[in-house]
């Protein structure tokens, strides 16, 4: 309860309150001491006033009474004593006595003592009565009466009574002094005890309060210090449990906020460390430099990662294009090589054929020569043949005449057979056989006429053919003549063919050389394409690595800023050049230098299993 109360007090109030409380406690202690001292002083005072003072009065009173007695005695006994003087003296003593009585009456507090005092007063009054008598006697100057009065037993008794009473009072006063002394002693002891107890209790209370207050200050401070120390060494798991409504509570709260903020920042940084660039940063105030930087860093990182992501994608795409290009080149190279192989094969065939052509041309030359002489020969034979055909024509005409004769005979025979048939019919049964013969003859005549007619047709035909043959033979002769001249032309052409074939052979050799050069270029291109492919592979690996890294990073997909990222012109140019490479037609000049036969720098393994 107190703790909580103390806890929630403002530091200043707390310190002031502590001071006030301690001061109050001190005042209490001092008060007690003061009271005790006062009491003691009081007691001493009372001892002094109630005992010491009356006690000092009593001897004076005794002296006074004795002096009065002596004065009375003197006045009674001695001569020459002026009563006037005695009277004055007595008067003075009486006054003194009254004073002392009054004084005594003032200081006496004890009932018993007062009783004794009253008694003393009574006794003194008795004495005073005697004294008055004596004084009256003195006034009357009645010395004997004075002596009498003085030495009277009553007077003596009154005097003794006064003295006794005084003694009794003194005794009482002693007694009282004793009592008071004892009382004072015990009072002093009591106050001393009280004082010590209060002192002790107050000390305890003060100590308790001071400790509580100190604790209420030191504890949170220590906690804050510990937390601060942890923060200093980077430990953000600092815990601050202190809660109160004072400045220290506020300090703790603030520090808790610092820790919380630090934790938040640590969490953000941890997130960043885990490659997550998506955390949102809220500025705590206009002056939040750290979070502003953090936000800026995150924004920059996001931009950067996004750019990297875009770049890596582009690189990957570029690599893919490179790969496609190099594949295309290598396929192209393969096709080119295969085409070149075919070309080479074809060229070989052409070369062989050209050789054959040259050979054949020579043969053809010879054949043309032979053809020419044969044609000449044919021409001569053709003349002979024409003559023979003429002869055939003449013979045919003769045969035609004969055939006409045969035809006439057949006609006549037919008529004869007709007549014979008529005659045979007349002859009746006897002519029957003859009729048959006549019929036979008629048939024969018909056949003869038919045969003659056919022969005539054949002859006619033959004649036509002969005429045709004659014509053809003429044409043939003409043709043969042309053949001769043609053969001469052929011979000359074949000669030029042979020459051309030789030229062709040279051309083919040149083409072959060209092909081998092209082939070399194709191979170099193929090598280049492989190199490109290898570079592409490396590039792709890098791009993939980059992609993996980028993928492991979470980042915000966009900002309001424009972040288009293009491949650099150099890269684009390079990619383009890769595409263009397949059209490269540089001719490689083979190095003429022989390969050195020195030992190679990278030696081969020494053992090859079954090999």
């Amino acid at each position, binding site marked *: 309860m107190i703790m909580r109360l103390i806890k929630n007090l403002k530091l200043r109030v707390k310190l002031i309150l502590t001071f006030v409380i301690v001061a109050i406690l001190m005042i209490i202690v001092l008060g007690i001491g003061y009271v005790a001292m006062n009491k003691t002083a009081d007691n001493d005072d009372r001892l002094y006033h109630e005992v010491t003072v009356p006690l000092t009065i009593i001897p004076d009173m005794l002296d006074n009474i004795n002096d009065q007695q002596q004065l009375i005695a003197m006045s009674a006994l001695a001569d020459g004593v002026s009563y006037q003087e005695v009277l004055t003296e007595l008067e003075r003593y009486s006054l003194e006595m009254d004073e002392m009585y009054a004084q005594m009456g003032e200081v006496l507090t004890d009932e018993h003592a007062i009783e004794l005092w009253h008694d003393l007063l009574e006794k003194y009054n008795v004495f005073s009565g005697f004294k008055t008598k004596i004084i009256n006697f003195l006034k009357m100057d009645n010395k004997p009466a004075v002596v009498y009065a003085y030495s009277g037993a009553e007077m003596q008794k009154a005097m003794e009574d006064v003295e006794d009473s005084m003694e009794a009072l003194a005794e009482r006063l002693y007694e009282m002094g004793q009592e008071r002394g004892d009382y004072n002693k015990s009072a002093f002891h009591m106050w001393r005890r009280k004082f010590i107890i209060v002192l002790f209790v107050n000390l305890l209370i003060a100590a308790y309060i001071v400790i509580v207050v100190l604790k209420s200050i030191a504890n949170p401070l220590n906690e804050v210090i510990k937390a601060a120390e942890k923060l200093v060494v980077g430990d953000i798991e600092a815990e601050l449990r202190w809660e109160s409504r004072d400045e220290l509570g506020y300090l703790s709260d603030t520090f808790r906020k610092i820790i919380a903020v630090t934790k938040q920042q640590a969490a953000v940084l941890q997130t960043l460390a885990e490659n997550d660039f998506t955390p949102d940063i809220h500025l705590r105030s206009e002056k939040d430099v750290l979070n502003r930087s953090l936000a800026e860093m995150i924004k920059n990182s996001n931009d950067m990662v996004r750019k990297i992501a875009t770049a890596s994608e582009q690189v990957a795409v570029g690599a893919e294009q490179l790969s496609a290009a190099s594949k295309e080149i290598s396929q192209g190279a393969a096709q080119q*090589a295969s085409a070149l*192989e075919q070309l080479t094969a074809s060229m070989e065939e052409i070369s062989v054929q050209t050789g054959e052509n040259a050979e054949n041309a020579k043969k053809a030359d010879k054949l043309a020569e032979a053809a020419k002489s044969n044609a000449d020969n044919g021409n001569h034979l053709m003349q002979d043949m024409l003559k023979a055909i003429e002869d055939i024509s003449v013979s045919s005409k003769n045969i035609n005449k004969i055939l006409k004769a045969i035809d006439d005979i057949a006609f006549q025979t037919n008529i004869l057979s007709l007549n014979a048939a008529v005659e045979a019919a007349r002859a009746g049964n006897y002519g029957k056989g003859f009729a048959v013969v006549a019929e036979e003859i008629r048939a024969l005549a018909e056949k003869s006429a038919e045969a003659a007619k056919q022969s005539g047709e054949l002859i006619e035909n033959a004649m036509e053919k002969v005429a045709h043959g004659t014509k053809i033979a003429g044409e043939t002769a003409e043709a043969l003549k042309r053949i001769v001249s043609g053969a001469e032309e052929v011979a000359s052409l074949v000669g030029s063919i042979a020459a051309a074939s030789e030229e062709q052979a040279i051309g083919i050799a040149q083409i072959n050389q060209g092909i081998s050069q092209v*082939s070399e270029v194709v*191979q170099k291109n193929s090598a280049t394409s492989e190199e490109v492919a290898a570079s592409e592979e490396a590039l792709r690996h890098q791009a993939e690595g980059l992609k993996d890294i980028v993928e492991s990073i979470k980042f915000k997909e966009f900002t309001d800023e424009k972040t288009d990222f293009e491949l650099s012109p150099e890269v684009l140019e390079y990619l383009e050049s890769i595409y263009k490479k397949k059209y490269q037609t540089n001719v490689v000049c083979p190095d003429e230098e022989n390969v050195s036969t020195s030992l*190679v720098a*990278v*030696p*081969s*393994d020494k053992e090859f299993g079954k*090999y």
Partner: protein
Amino acid sequence: MFDISDKEFELLSEYIRKNFGIHLKKEKKGLLIGRLQNILIKNNIPNFSKYYEYLLSDKTGEAASVLANRITTNHTYFMREAAHMDYMKDHVLPYLKSTVEERDIRIWSAGCSTGEEPYTLAMVIDEFFGSDKLFWDTKILATDISDEVLNKAKKGIYGIEELKELPLGWKLNYFEPVGRDRFEIKPFLKDEVIFRKFNLMEERFFFKKPFHVIFCKNVMIYFEEQTAKKLVDKFFHWLEPGGYLFVGLSESLKRASSSLKYMEPGVYRKE
């Protein structure tokens, strides 16, 4: 970005030509820089002259090996130039199966790069022989000059992208998945290929027996004509009569100067 002077380029390209056969014309300056600058950065070498000195002074062969790794172009994929694989299946393997005695077929993949070619060959062979494969030794010799690619080839782990040309059945038969989108050649197929480091520029080859088939595809395209011709002569020497030499589809041997018979694009035969 490093710069290379004409002199430096000349020295380095000459070194590369002599030792690896690779001919770099002046146009390849960019390529040389691109491929070597990482070595320079890694070894803290300020320029190419210093690099050349380092190359010559290094007697362990490490520098030259690294250079070989960097300067070789290792572009290959499964079923590259499938026409040749078909030719193997349709002509070469039936011929070998019917003629080779002792059931020992020797095939050399010279310049095997990351192993796709010999593995593809091994798959073609495995499919061709089927269950008869048991009785045949068809282990393929696969060589390259670069340790780096040989190590990858020996591991036999490829990305899914690299397998896309292969038929599904082959993917299932010859690969097993390891990790995400990664596939490893099954051990039995790995056993079918002997990977070795071999420099084709060795003056003399020292094999036990001649080969039935030599694949040397898209290797000589990086060589000068003379170097290539010398190599082809060696191949010819190391081929069995009737044996085949496969070169890249875009390559062609000088027919007039070669003793090999042209069969079809990229395929030559020793008669």
